[in-house]
């Protein structure tokens, strides 16, 4: 194996191009994570509603998103909406729909796992409604859902790599372009480029999942 092949990553503007590609991935991931976070909290609260019909509708939405692979959802939205929107916007829509469903389930789980007497004890102490939420419900719920929510974020970051398959030019696509251009001079280019992208994703996801694990351990006690 020609170990000098790694230079293909750093040759010319290659590194810059790869990082620019990563920026596209990051943009899709960040926007979707943000939208999912906000809408997911709303959905999660709605899912704890008293009305069974509301709960069922949310449940159907969640299960429908879950049972079909994300790649299939990307295809469905891409081929039915693509005329007006680009691949990037389609991916953001799909990832937000998916993330909202998953986040909703996490929030629902966290809210429901909170014992009822917490709220009642607060009321018995004479706290106002706002105070109960401010000091009792929200801090405890956040502790329960944050590790899972961060975990979901890493899952979403990882899954954004699929957008290359609906024609978004992101880090993997840029990698392919670089490989195609330099394959004659550097036969091992695909090993180094894909290996580099592999490490890039790891470098992003590992610290985030470490944070989630640490928070979980800290708040469990």
């Amino acid at each position, binding site marked *: 194996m020609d170990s000098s092949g790694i230079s293909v990553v750093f040759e010319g503007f290659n590194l810059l191009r790869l990082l620019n590609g990563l920026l596209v991935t990051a943009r899709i991931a960040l926007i979707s994570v943000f939208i999912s976070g906000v809408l997911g909290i709303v959905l999660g609260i709605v899912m704890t509603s008293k009305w069974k019909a509301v709960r069922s509708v949310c449940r159907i939405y969640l299960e429908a998103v879950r*049972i079909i692979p994300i790649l299939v959802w990307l295809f469905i939205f891409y081929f039915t909406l693509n005329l007006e929107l680009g691949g990037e916007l389609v991916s953001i829509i799909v990832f937000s729909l998916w993330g909202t469903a998953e986040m909703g389930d996490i929030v629902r789980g966290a809210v429901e796992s909170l014992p009822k007497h917490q709220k009642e004890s607060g009321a018995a102490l004479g706290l106002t409604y706002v105070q109960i939420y401010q000091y009792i419900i929200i801090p405890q719920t956040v502790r329960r859902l944050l590790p899972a929510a961060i975990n979901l974020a890493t899952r979403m970051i990882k899954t954004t790599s699929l957008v290359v398959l609906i024609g978004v030019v992101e880090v993997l696509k840029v990698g392919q372009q670089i490989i195609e251009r330099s394959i004659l001079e550097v036969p091992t280019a695909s090993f180094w480029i*894909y290996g580099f992208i592999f490490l890039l994703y790891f470098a992003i996801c590992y610290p985030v999942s470490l944070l989630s694990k640490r928070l979980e351990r800290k708040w469990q006690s």
Partner: protein
Amino acid sequence: MDFGFIIQSLPLYWKAAQLTLTISVWAIGLSLLLGFFCSLILYFQVPVLSLIVKIYIEISRNTPSLIQLFFLYYGLTQIGLKLEAELCAVAGLTFLGGSYMAEAFRSGLEAVGKTQIESGLSIGLSRSQLVRYVIFPQAFSVSMPALEANAIFLIKETSIVSAVALPDLMFIAKDLIGMYYSTKEALTLLVLFYLILLLPVSLLLTALERKVRYGQFGN
């Protein structure tokens, strides 16, 4: 919606579904095996090996499956390790699934209380008896929901193998859209076939879970 076209394409999808299913079965089976051994290594804290397993789990869980597959299929061929596309898909999905299964097994093993093990020892069970009659049944029943979720996850994850030119369901759908512009029909069939694959598995696993968790639920 062109129903004639749908009927015509059914055999194509049927064949593709078989490939998706074959890859899924292999990937799930091998992931279970790999995950089981990894979890045992972690549980018994085998020196050196447990460090390797830990590193493997972190790498596998923190990188996208598509990139793993690309690296395996396009990257490693360049340095002399050439795999068939099917083998590559199974290997890639096992690499991904193994770590998820390992975590599921490990959480089950860790959930078995210390008192359970001590009680077993105090009534004179041997080490292998302890593992067989006390630790495994309890650990397995705790791990079951996570194992199931991982199995479904792996079946869904097979949708990426079309990226290494394997004619699975995704591939056929993409092909039909490209050749005949029959977007609506191709996508409808795609969803339908995934539902046909995934819904029974999901129901079957729920039933299985009830059976395995019998010990926890009681009569």
